[in-house]
C-alpha cells in the first residue's frame, strides 16, 4: 500500500480546520498546534500499521 509523505503545515489542514469549527470560537496557536500534532500522529501511526 502506498503511504503518503506528511508535510507539516500542509497535510491534514482540512481536518484541523474542521476541529476548529467545532470549537465555536478562536483558539490560541498553541492549542491548534497541540491538536494538529495529535492529528498528524494519528495519521502517521495508522499508516505505519498499514504499511
Amino acid at each position, binding site marked *: 500500500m502506498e503511504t503518503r509523505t506528511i*508535510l*507539516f503545515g500542509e497535510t491534514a489542514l482540512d481536518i484541523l*480546520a474542521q476541529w476548529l469549527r467545532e470549537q465555536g470560537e478562536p483558539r*490560541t496557536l*498553541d492549542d491548534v498546534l497541540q491538536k494538529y*500534532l495529535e492529528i498528524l500522529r494519528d495519521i*502517521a501511526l495508522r499508516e505505519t500499521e498499514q504499511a
Partner: protein
Amino acid sequence: MTVPTFQGNDEQQALAAEIFQLMVLQASFYADDALIRQTLDNLAAFLAEKHKREPDAMATSIEEAIAVNTAVFRREEAEAATYYITTRRGVPEPLPVDTSHTFAQRLYEPENPLPVDDISVVVSTTRPTLTTVEPVYISDYWQRASDTAPAIADAAAAAPVVDVTPSTVSTGETAAAEGAADAAVAVPADALADSPAVMTVAGGVPVDLRHDVADILAQHGDMLRAELASGIDKDPLRQMVRFGNMVLPEDRLINLGKKDLGRIRDDISEANEPLLDTVIQADVYNQQVGENEAMRFSLNYRLGREKDFEYVGVVGANLWSLKTLPHIGTRNVKTSEMAQFTEYLMQGYDDSLQERPLATIAEEGFVTHRLSFFEWANGVVVLTAALNALIAQPLLDDQRRAVLRFVMPQDAAAEMLVEVRYPVGSRGGWMQGFDLFFNDFLIAGAEITIARTEEPHVYTIIYDESVDGQTRDVLVPDEKKNRFVFEEVTYYCQVDLALSPDQASFPQIRNLKALPMSDRRRANTVLRHVIETLGEAVGTATEPAYRITAQTAHTGFNVLRPASLPYITALLNDNQYVQPADEAGVYVFAPPLNMPDEADDADDTPPEDDNSDE
C-alpha cells in the same frame, strides 16, 4: 455575407433578390444563422407601393418567385398570416446546436470533484471581508519535489531524525548537552525513507511522530509553532485565518462593513488615544468581554487589513490606533536618529544586566534605570536588555511599535501614553513620551523604577523620593539659544551623579555644543568634541593632546546621545588617535592638527531616511 443564387425567370430572380435584401436589411444585427421572418402581407404592401402595382398582384408575384427559390426561402403557414423565412447566409434553416462540450458538462469535470461537504473551499458563501488582495501561495511541496529528491536522501544521511525521548528533553540542560543528545539518538537514514511516521518540516527537518505530542512540543515547539503559523497563512484554500496567536476558521469570520469601520474610527477619534479591542467591542457593538470572541477576532483581523488603522498593542492587549491620532513623544529626535543612537545596545555594549539578571527581572517584574542627560532632556528611555525583558513584546511579526500606558503613583496616579519602539535588526529600541514627567519631577541622573501591573499594556513609573531636597547648579538645555547652561535646581529624587553633570564637577561641560542631531549620528565626532571640551589639555599649540577619563567621556557623551560606559571605552580603545595613559581608565587623545571632522568616522553608519510618522 454570401449572396445566394436565385432561380426562375428574370423577373422572379429580381424579385426574389429584392425580397432577400429587404429581409437581410431587417436583420442587420442578427447572427448569420438566426432565422429572419417576414409576412407575405408586409412584403406585398411594401413592394406594391414601391413598384406602383396592386397589392394582390404583387402578392401573387411574390409567391411565384419564392416558390422557385425554396433553397433560400421557407414558407410557413400560420393562422393569421403566411411567413417567409430565411437567414443572412441564404439558407432557411438554423445551424445545428453543438452539444459536444457544454458548460453544464464542464461544471461536472473532473470525474471526481471535491465532495459536497468541502464545497465551501471552492465556493464562498460569505462576502469577502478583505479589501486587499491576498497572495495565493503555491505549496512548498512542489518546490521541494522538483529539485530536492536526491537532496532529501543526502540530507537524510547527513541530518538524522531527532528522536525525542523524555530522557533527552530537559529544559535545564545546556545547548551543548542537547546537541549531544540529538546526535546520540539518530535514526538510520534508510529508516527515514521508509517510515511514514516521520514528517518533514519546512527546511528539511524530519520529526518522528511516534513519540508523545508533549515530547515533540518540548523539543521542537518554537519551530513547529512558527511553521504552523506559516502553513495557515500560506494555505491556498485559506481554511483558517490567524491574527497574532489566535486562529479561527475562515468561514466563521464575521463581516465588518464600511459603517462598522466608520463607527470604530469615530470611537477611537473621540477617545483621542488608542483603544483596546474589548473597549471598541463594548462601545460599538455593546458586547462585553468574552461575550463574542469570534466577533473580537473578526474585529482585530479586519482592522489589521485597513490602512488607516494601526495595531499598537502587545501580547495580551490588542490596541488600535489611527494615523490621525496625536504624535506621542519628542519631535526633537527623528526615529532614524534614535535607532542609530541605540545601536550600541545591539553591539554587545549593553551593561544593564550587571546588577540583576534577566530571570530576576522576569520574576520580580520591575527595573531600576538611571536617566542619562539625553534621555531626561528628550523624554526618552533607551530599551536596554533589562527593560526589554520587562516590557511586553509585540504581537505581530512585522510590528515595530506599541503604545503603553504609564501610571505615576506619586503624581495622583496620573497617566501618560508612551510609545515603544522595539529593536529591529542591528538597531536598538527605546520608549518616548516621558517629556512632561521628566521635566516636572526629575533631573538628569535620576533613578526611576518601572514595574509591570496586571494589565500587559499598563506600567507604573516611580522615583526614589526618600531623600531630602538637594539644590545644585545642574546642566539644562537652553533650547532658545541652542546651547547648554547651568541652572540652580532643587530636586527630591535619588540621583546618579555620574550622569548628572553640574557646575561643581564639570564646569566646562556647558561649553559642549548642542550639535545637530544629524551630526550626533557620528559617534567618533561626538567623542572627539567631548574630549576636546572636557579633557585636560596636556599638549602644545603645535601638538595638541587631551587627557580624559572614560567616566568623564561617558558623562559628556551622554549629554549629546545615549551610551553605556563599555561602549565609550570601546570607542576610546578603537580610536587611532587615542592611547591609554599609565593610569587605568585614563586616555590621551592626540589628534593631528589638520584632522578633518569626518576622518575619524569613516566606518560609521550613513544617515538614513526618516520614518514617515515624523
